[in-house]
């Protein structure tokens, strides 16, 4: 466990010292939503039905934007090699990096997302549901993303392949999360779709570290 907390702390300290990594996905997230609103000039009631999807698409893209950082710098400066020959379980180290990535990008999106939802005209109660979906959904993005990054980090320009690999896997999260909010606005119960998101979260957090660590061993070689 000591290893887990050390790597988690290391990544968070690095993110705080190198603020661009911290602020860039956040700014991107806010800007996309503001631009949407500026560009659409939709009627308020139309905007409300679109709001959950807009927030979620922005969350997805900002996650994608920051994913590459997860292993890239460790690959370049050789820290990854040291992790692999360290005799500590690589999957545990990967889990720490997934959680760190979520704290750096996902958590901020989770906290700001509902405010932007309010701005898009969602009711206060609906933003609470939006907050819940973001809280459960954004860690899934970090987890699934880790597999994609681990597979492409050995390539010099893995960016495009990363998007192609990861975006299709993000789609179920997008669908279930934005549908949850819409279902709530429609006045139906949301327990089922929240449960599905939870299931996705548990599944991805328990499987992604293994898949990603296997992929990292390949990428490093």
């Amino acid at each position, binding site marked *: 466990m*000591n*290893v887990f907390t*050390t*790597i988690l702390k*290391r990544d968070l*300290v*690095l993110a705080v*010292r*190198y603020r661009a990594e911290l602020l860039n996905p956040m700014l991107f997230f806010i800007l996309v939503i503001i631009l949407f609103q500026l560009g659409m000039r939709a009627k308020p009631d139309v905007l409300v039905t679109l709001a959950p999807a807009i927030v979620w698409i922005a969350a997805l893209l900002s996650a994608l934007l920051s994913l590459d950082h997860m292993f890239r*710098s460790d690959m*370049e*400066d*050789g*820290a990854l*090699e*040291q*992790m*692999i*020959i*360290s*005799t*500590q379980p690589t999957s545990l180290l990967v889990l720490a990096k997934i959680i760190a990535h979520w704290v750096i990008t996902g958590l901020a999106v989770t906290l700001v997302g509902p405010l932007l939802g309010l701005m898009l005209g969602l009711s206060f109660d609906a933003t609470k549901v939006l907050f819940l979906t973001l809280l459960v959904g954004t860690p899934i993005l970090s987890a699934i993303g880790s597999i994609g990054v681990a597979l492409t980090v050995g390539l010099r320009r893995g960016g495009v392949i990363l998007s192609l690999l990861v975006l299709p896997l993000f789609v179920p999260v997008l669908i279930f999360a934005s549908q949850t909010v819409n279902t709530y606005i429609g006045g139906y119960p949301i327990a089922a779709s929240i449960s599905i998101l939870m299931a996705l979260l548990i599944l991805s957090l328990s499987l992604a570290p293994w898949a990603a660590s296997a992929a990292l061993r390949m990428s*490093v*070689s």
Partner: protein
Amino acid sequence: MDQARLPYTDTNILSAQKLSSEKQDRWLFKDISFTIEPGHIFHIKGTNGSGKTTLLRVLCGLTIADSGEVVWGDKPIGRQHDQYHTQLSYVGHTDGIKQDLTVEENLRVAAVLAQGKQQKSTLVNLTEILKQVGLNNKKYTFAHALSAGQRRRLALARCLLNDTSIWILDEPLTALDAQGVQLVEEMIKQHIERKGIAIITSHQALNIDDEYYKALDLS
């Protein structure tokens, strides 16, 4: 004999059997075999691009050779990864140092990662290790503010965290001043005195007794 000079507890013969590796349709090395007994230094020489780093990575188990095997003791390292890595310290061509962490933080992370490796018989003290490599006064300096030679010293300090019997060092002498070179030579000498194995690449000659010295030229 002081504690630090006691022989390592787990030493074994390391051998390469018909290793070959190719890169972009060109053989970097083909069918090379060698044996390194405990208490020896193995110096891999070669021109730039002759595959020295690749060979070191194969010996670490980071890269898989296109054919051939690296055997430690009686088993190929591929079948005893974890066991082999408990005895291995590797300082690569990229040094694994985070620029935005201080010297001490870097070493602390390395120490935690090295927990599973062969533990030192005495308690390790990071300050002591930093003193040994001459970086004690730089403890709280960010790694990006270090000179290339100082960074090299910090990377090499990782070898002192544990009692690992195999050191694989890629160009350990690069960017080091005369004092630094002497320090590395002294570290390696003590290491082979304790029946460890040191595998290094270097363009510089090393001041090591012929008896314990083997070389391989890849070019």
